[in-house]
């Protein structure tokens, strides 16, 4: 069984097409892992066992082409699924069932994939550890006493543990790349506007982007080919020529110019992480790329600008959860004002409340100019810095996070410190640029380390080629956690 589980999505789909394995067998194998591991890892909020098997059976009868045909996957629980509850891991939406599908859900369906369920996450995608879920924290498959990262922690952990072959997450400040790094899998956040946000429950509208978490870069290419498009229902979507990333994947990086922004290798960076990231840089250099240090002065503003804008938008995006139209309403016969106050205070967890408060504060009278307006200006500065860098470089290389996955419970007491975790990832969100995280080895304690690649707008092909080049040369992405599949008990 682990043989199937060990395959990449592309290998599995090829096997299905050759008749070596059926969609149902694959789905059943994955469901077995989920059943075995759910109590330990808590990766899923909702498992669609029966519908998934029915769907797989239907696909087996139909046969089909496409690189993802028949492949079981799962999506973060902030992507709307018609008729299937979509909770955002919040008590507020614990029983919310959307009447429509997110754009990407329909596209995955068209690609012939099998949806196994909805993945656990930080509440409303706010968090860096997947501990703020109302359904309990997700555990890291490499070490059950550690967090998987967040907010797409369920997605990264599920892929790492062999529960699914691919997963969709969302990345607002690093929420795809950071858990991918901490769980030793490959994650990509595409250019803002190239994947529909329609049906992605908003956290921070100007940054939110759906991304893919997979076993390797080739699978990421296939998933992006399936989900990138121009959806007229998303006004911030960008028209363009989509598809062809997988076909264009050749791993040829000769002559590629890669910059390493010194500001993203600061003092806070754990030396072990630094060494692993530099290992990856060395592989790229060996494969023919020119890698050198460069300067990104505006990076100093990035984290502050990100949190001000993200929280401001969040405070407005989450105002709609007021107990009137859907979702949680407090119990008891109370007046309107009390209904608002109680429904929201009971429905939201503390991290969500903290960010709503912060966002409300920076937008409120007397503070807008000092915080929000400055943050917008800082975002422009960061954008300009990146534009300049991309006139000299094809890609930028940096760590994903300053350290490896921390222990459960460590981050929650010091929110300001937790926010620092996002220092290296938020730049790509502020600028809307594509970025990915690929495994680049392990710490001495055996925890995965990721390296981040950031590309210019629409630079997904370049990114994927660099990642592919590394993955052809190394085995880092093939390392599996002890609890992979149904074997092993984990630690």
């Amino acid at each position: 069984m682990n043989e199937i589980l060990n395959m990449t999505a592309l290998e599995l789909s090829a096997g299905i097409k050759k008749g070596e394995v059926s969609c149902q067998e694959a789905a059943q194998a994955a469901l077995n892992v989920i059943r075995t591991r759910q109590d330990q890892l808590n990766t899923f909020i909702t498992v669609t066992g029966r519908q998934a098997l029915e769907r797989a059976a239907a696909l087996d009868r139909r046969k089909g082409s496409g690189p993802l045909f028949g492949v079981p996957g799962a999506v973060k629980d902030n992507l709307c699924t018609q008729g299937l509850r979509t909770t955002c891991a919040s008590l507020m939406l614990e029983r919310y069932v959307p009447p429509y599908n997110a754009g990407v859900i329909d596209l995955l369906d068209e690609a012939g994939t099998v949806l196994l369920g909805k993945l656990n996450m930080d509440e409303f995608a706010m968090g860096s550890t997947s501990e703020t879920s109302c359904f309990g924290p997700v555990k890291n498959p490499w070490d059950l006493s550690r967090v998987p990262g967040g907010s797409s922690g369920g997605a990264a952990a599920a892929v790492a543990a062999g529960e699914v072959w691919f997963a969709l997450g969302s990345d607002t400040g690093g929420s795809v790349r950071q858990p991918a790094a901490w769980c030793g899998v490959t994650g990509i956040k595409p250019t803002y506007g190239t994947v529909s946000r329609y049906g992605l429950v908003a956290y921070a509208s100007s940054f939110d982007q759906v991304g893919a978490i997979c076993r390797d870069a080739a699978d990421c290419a296939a998933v992006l080919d399936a989900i990138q498009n121009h959806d007229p229902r998303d006004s911030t979507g960008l028209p363009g020529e989509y598809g062809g990333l997988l076909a264009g994947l050749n791993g040829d990086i000769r002559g590629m110019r890669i910059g390493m922004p010194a500001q993203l290798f600061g003092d806070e960076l754990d030396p072990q992480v630094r060494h692993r990231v530099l290992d990856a840089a060395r592989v790229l250099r060996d494969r023919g790329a020119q890698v050198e240090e460069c300067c990104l002065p505006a990076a100093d503003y990035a984290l502050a600008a990100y949190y001000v804008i993200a929280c401001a938008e969040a405070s407005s995006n989450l105002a709609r959860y007021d107990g009137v139209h859907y979702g949680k309403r407090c119990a008891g016969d109370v007046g309107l004002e009390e209904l608002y106050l109680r429904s929201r205070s009971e429905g939201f967890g503390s991290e969500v409340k903290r960010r709503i408060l912060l966002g409300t504060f920076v937008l409120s009278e007397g503070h807008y100019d000092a915080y929000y307006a400055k943050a917008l200006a800082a975002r422009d500065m960061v954008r300009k810095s990146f534009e300049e860098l991309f006139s000299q470089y094809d890609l930028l290389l940096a760590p994903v996070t300053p350290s490896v996955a921390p222990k459960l419970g460590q981050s929650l007491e010091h929110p300001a410190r937790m926010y620092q975790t996002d220092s290296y990832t938020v730049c790509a969100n502020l600028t809307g640029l594509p970025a990915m995280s690929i495994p680049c080895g392990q710490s001495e304690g055996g925890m995965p380390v990721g390296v981040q690649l950031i590309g210019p707008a629409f630079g997904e092909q370049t990114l994927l080629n660099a990642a592919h080049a590394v993955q052809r040369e190394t085995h880092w992405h093939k390392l599996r956690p002890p609890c992979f599949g149904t074997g092993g008990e984990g630690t």
Partner: protein
Amino acid sequence: MRITSETVEHTAALAKLKLTHEELAQAAEQLEDILNCMDVLAGVTCDTQQQAQMRKNVLREDVCRPGLERSQLLVGAPATDGTYFLVPKTVE
């Protein structure tokens, strides 16, 4: 920037959140902590706000399409009489 419990209370009222006394005090401390990290923004001088690479004039034609059935609309409503959403009486 110094954040008092009163500031948090005012902000919470705007956001329609109800915090206990302990929560207020804790939130004040945490917000102050976080906002101190934001103080770096004071050094930002550039004030041109262009919406880089953002599209313009993304417009839709004025053509009707059916929306949701009323039953679909009301199915998740916390309180409804089958025709309307219901809220405790509002005073103008």
